[in-house]
């Protein structure tokens, strides 16, 4: 009985194998460029992953309408990892075995990290639209990894470089609101300042969000002789601190992040907001490619773009463009093309640096002038870039 049963199981396996072989046969014969798309397509974090998937489909459609890549149609292989690192290895193995030439993904940093080793061994270029963990590119462990989003420390880098190279301050006070976002930024800022040795961190403190007043910490800043404050956190506390500093007639410069680059900050802080610097994402609303991509998304899927849509769009374009330019789907050729040829995307003209971060993507510095945030002229920021 037992042997007969296992015999039957074996037989059914044979049949299934035969059938899949039958279906796989003609598909393989058609020769497509397979773009793997991995990320959270279901579950709690689906809203992070689905926009990138939609973007990839739109880009594939666009390329196919123009005759495909290297004369072949682009095919999307979508795999769901639910943003879980333990599932991401499965997802990656599946994509590799399905023959993906390049992979767009993953979405969450943790999942991306566990999947990358598998792609690296298989020699597949991987590009994420949303994984911001600095280590992914900076550790140098994953030469096959690229991304179209700025890493978590990019803002801190911009803020500190701006303070030290453009504003030329020597004594900096760093404050944060003890939250993940604010504290993370503050710690990166401290690391960068201490590593550069161009300035000194005189105060490094967390404040209590929602406290009745911040006069004590403002006194401390005054006492420390800091020329600039770098604040990691959101606008409500930032406005209180700035108001109290200005009431005490302190001219200390105030530099913050995109939690403060919010019009509510200007509304609340009023006159005290004048001259405050805040870094924020580069403005893409005027980029015609971005407008077109968002319109295409609206007409095809009838939804809003969602999180990381433009980053996903840019990543898919960059990957397919690199294959086109490299005239091959081989790992070295594609990776080299990504680093050599700039490509026009909704995020602007981008190419990738040695580590895999996109050049031209990320943050700009803004300053409050006459009640609105104005981008600090590119010439000033370019000076920062050169010094890097």
């Amino acid at each position: 009985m037992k042997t007969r049963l296992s015999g039957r199981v074996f037989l059914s396996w044979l049949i299934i194998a035969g059938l899949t072989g039958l279906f796989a046969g003609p598909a393989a014969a058609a020769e497509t460029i397979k773009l793997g798309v991995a990320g959270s397509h279901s579950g709690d974090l689906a809203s992070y992953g689905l926009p990138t998937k939609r973007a990839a489909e739109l880009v594939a459609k666009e390329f196919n309408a123009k005759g495909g890549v290297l004369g072949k149609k682009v095919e999307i292989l979508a795999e769901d990892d639910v943003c879980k690192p333990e599932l991401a290895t499965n997802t990656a193995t599946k994509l590799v075995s399905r023959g993906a030439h390049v992979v767009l993904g993953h979405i969450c940093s943790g999942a991306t990290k566990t999947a990358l080793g598998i792609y690296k061994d298989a020699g597949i270029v991987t590009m994420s639209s949303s994984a911001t963990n600095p280590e992914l590119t900076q550790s140098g462990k994953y030469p096959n990894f690229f991304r179209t989003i700025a890493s978590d420390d990019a803002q801190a880098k911009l803020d500190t470089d701006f303070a030290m190279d453009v504003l030329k301050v020597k004594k900096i006070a760093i404050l944060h609101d003890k939250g993940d976002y604010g504290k993370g930024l503050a710690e990166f800022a401290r690391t960068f300042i201490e590593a550069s040795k161009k300035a000194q961190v005189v105060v490094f403190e967390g404040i209590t969000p929602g406290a009745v007043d911040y006069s004590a910490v403002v006194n401390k800043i005054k006492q420390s002789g800091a020329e600039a404050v770098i604040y990691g956190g959101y606008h409500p506390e930032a406005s209180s601190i700035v108001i109290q500093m200005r009431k005490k007639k302190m001219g200390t410069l105030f530099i913050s992040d995109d939690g403060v680059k919010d019009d509510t900050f200007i509304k609340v802080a009023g006159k005290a907001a004048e001259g405050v610097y805040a870094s924020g994402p580069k403005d893409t609303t005027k980029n015609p490619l971005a407008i077109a991509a968002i319109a295409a998304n609206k007409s095809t899927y009838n939804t809003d773009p969602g999180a990381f849509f433009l980053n996903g769009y840019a990543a898919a374009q960059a990957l397919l463009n690199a294959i086109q330019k490299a005239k091959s789907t081989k790992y070295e050729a594609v990776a080299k093309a990504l680093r050599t040829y700039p490509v026009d995307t909704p995020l602007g003209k981008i190419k990738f640096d040695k580590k895999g971060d996109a050049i031209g993507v990320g943050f700009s510095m803004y300053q409050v002038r006459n009640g609105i945030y104005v981008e600090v002229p590119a010439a000033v920021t370019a000076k920062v870039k050169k010094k890097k």
Partner: protein
Amino acid sequence: MDYFLELFLGGLTRGSIYALIALGYTMVYGIIELINFAHGEIYMIGAFTALIVSSVLAFAGMSGPSVLFLAASVAIIYSAAYGFTVEKIAYKPLRQAPRLSPLISAIGMSIFLQNYVMLAQTSDFLPFPSLLPELTFLEKYGLKIGSSEFIILVTTAVSMVLLMLLIKFTKMGKAMRATAQDRNMAMLVGVDVNRTISYTFIIGSVLAAIGGVLIASHIGRINFYIGFIAGIKAFTAAVLGGIGSIPGAVLGAFILGWTESFATGYVSSDYEDVFAFVLLVLILIVRPSGLLGRSTVQKV
């Protein structure tokens, strides 16, 4: 020394605000042994009312101290009305109920008022105009004390003195003291206890509204949630000083304000709350009824 003085004055300002709110907690507790968790919300409503009134007046073209006066008056009346109504709706029907019931009712009232303001107004932070006038004569004292800090200190001091006179020398004050000592006996000798309790709520709310207007002008922003943290801190101050005791609440508030200010100034603002609550625990270990609290025998 200058730095010490600045921290001292900063702590004093902060303590004054805590004191204005803490008095409401401690008076209500003293009289009906209820922790009125909705008290922080009365403070928030005071600030919101002042914002609305001052915006309307500013729109009508008024400016200067008259705006402050009108906005503060309306805020005080409005908050007092809220305090009165909250007591009538949420606590009075539960006067004979077990002590836990009005407590739950108070928490419910607090959540209700927060959400009511959030829905009726906005959940965003709103800018609060600096209503307090700039006092030029303070400039020669350097920048140790700003105008708004000075005004907060003076207003608090005046409010405290008035409150003390009211409790010591008026008929209502006498009735309040009698009700606090023994409600039933007070009733027997002809004190209108319900009216006395209403007055207590009204006086507490007036002080909270004054605090709300002052601190909102000082820090320049408000939202529906400001009452929560201020309320918790003021409650802590009231417990620290001995809940039920009026001088205790003031003392507790100043100690709390100074602790926070000096902890931030000399150690780190990361530990501001840690120091404040460690102090609370230490004091309660040594003096379980608070600094000036009476170690009361359970009333029968």
